[in-house]
């Protein structure tokens, strides 16, 4: 049976460093992220509220997706943190208007 695949990642994807705590049965809780903006400023975000998490495949690649509400620079934003276990990489997806970019791996 073919596994469900969500296709391309929708939205702008940027690389992040993520401090994530895992329970003994592998469930994760992102606690802190750092990323660089267009002006090359480093943002550190420690206020992260995970709304839900799910496992998904994008273009055949497995991922764990955390829908989060974060507070960055005093402003609340809804983002998706994505963990790519095969590459041990984290990225953050910020929703963008129509005309989405293809996923970059």
């Amino acid at each position, binding site marked *: 049976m073919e596994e469900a695949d969500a296709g391309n990642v929708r939205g702008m994807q940027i690389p992040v460093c993520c401090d994530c*705590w895992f329970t*003994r049965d592998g469930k994760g809780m992102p606690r802190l992220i750092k990323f660089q903006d267009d002006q090359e400023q480093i943002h550190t975000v420690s206020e992260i509220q995970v709304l839900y998490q799910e496992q998904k495949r994008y273009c055949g690649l497995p991922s764990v997706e955390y829908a989060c509400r974060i507070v960055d620079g005093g402003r609340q934003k809804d983002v998706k943190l994505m963990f790519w276990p095969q590459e041990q990489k984290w990225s953050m997806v910020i929703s963008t208007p129509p005309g989405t970019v293809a996923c970059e791996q």
Partner: protein
Amino acid sequence: MFDKTIFHIDVNSAFLSWEAVHRLGHRGARLDLRTVPSAVGGDISMRHGIILAKSIPAKKYGVRTGESIPEALQKCPELVIVPPNYELYDKTSKAFIELLKEYTPDVEQYSVDEAFADMTGTAGLWGDPVSAAERLRNQVRQELGFTVNIGVSQNKLLAKMASDFKKPDQVHTLFREEIYDKMWPLPVEDLFFVGRATSRKLYNMGIHTIGDLAQTSPDILRAHLKKHGEVIWNFANGRDVSVVEKDPPANKSYGNSTTIAFDVTDPGTAKMVLLALAETVASRMRKDGVKAEMAAVGIKDFEFHYTGHQRVLQSATNITQEIHRAAVQLFDELWDGRPVRHLGLWAGRIREAECSRQLILFDGTDYEKLEKMDMAVDDVRRKFGIDAIKRAAFVHTGSGPKSLNENNIDHMSGGISRERRHVDYDKVQIL
């Protein structure tokens, strides 16, 4: 800013529960100590005879923690007394904390049987706070065999107050919006940080409940109780900004004290006790890689009068001999000849061990050699036990020339005495 979720987890009758679980699980006991009037008590003959923990049935007889064993037995003649076993408590406490860390990495051990856990952001893992707390409570009971109370709130103060509500084996919430109904009607002495002296002052001011305190002007409280008044006013209004600190702060001082089994009347014996205390204090400092710049000695006489004296040392040190020398000088200056019941030794103004020593021109002591000797002794004790090597002064020959240690002073005194650290269950009746 997201609201925090803080748990305060408190083991019910910890020492008694842990002893009960250990006996049921490992010693073949048929009686659960928690179901009968029972208590953990010290050794009367060693002058440690007080109640350290009691069961709920014992509480109904009026047995109180801290009272003497004879007093407790008067209230409840059939009280089952079991000896303390701090080695067991230490192991069980570690297991308890490890279990909490399965739920969140932010766990602050508040005492041997209490901890705070910052559960903020774990809703995705464990569900809403009350469900998470119930799950934790059940897991503690199933895996470790004892019960806990869990208080749930948005800050540490309210979580701690909540865990003190009805016991045992319960989860209670005390969110900020609930303090009016659940906290304000309580007597003011139930508020965290309000002790006997403060509650007496508050009663004199007509403040009887936590609600009265919360609604009193903070200026009035500050005028009567200074900074403390402001702190407890904030607490009464459910405000607490302290965070759960998973890494304990560095020690600001190291100390040990001991109640001697007999009243000491000669300085030689007192100085032996100080040497034994210096051994334990100095070895703890060396283990943590620190030195102290200040030494202090405390004496409690046979009538429980306490006096203390302290001095800044010439150089920061963790050498046993150097600390003992300072302690002896302080003792000689302080002691008035009255029989001594209790001695204490403290080392403060802590520095990193790498700090350099101020050399003194006329002091020929080879401190480097003494440091190396202490380290070698620590190594031997670590590998072979604390009794593997001891100073000659503590060797009790029992015959021949008079021994310095004819009173059999433990060569490493202070803190939890040996007879309370572990129990020889072959010599104890298991019910």
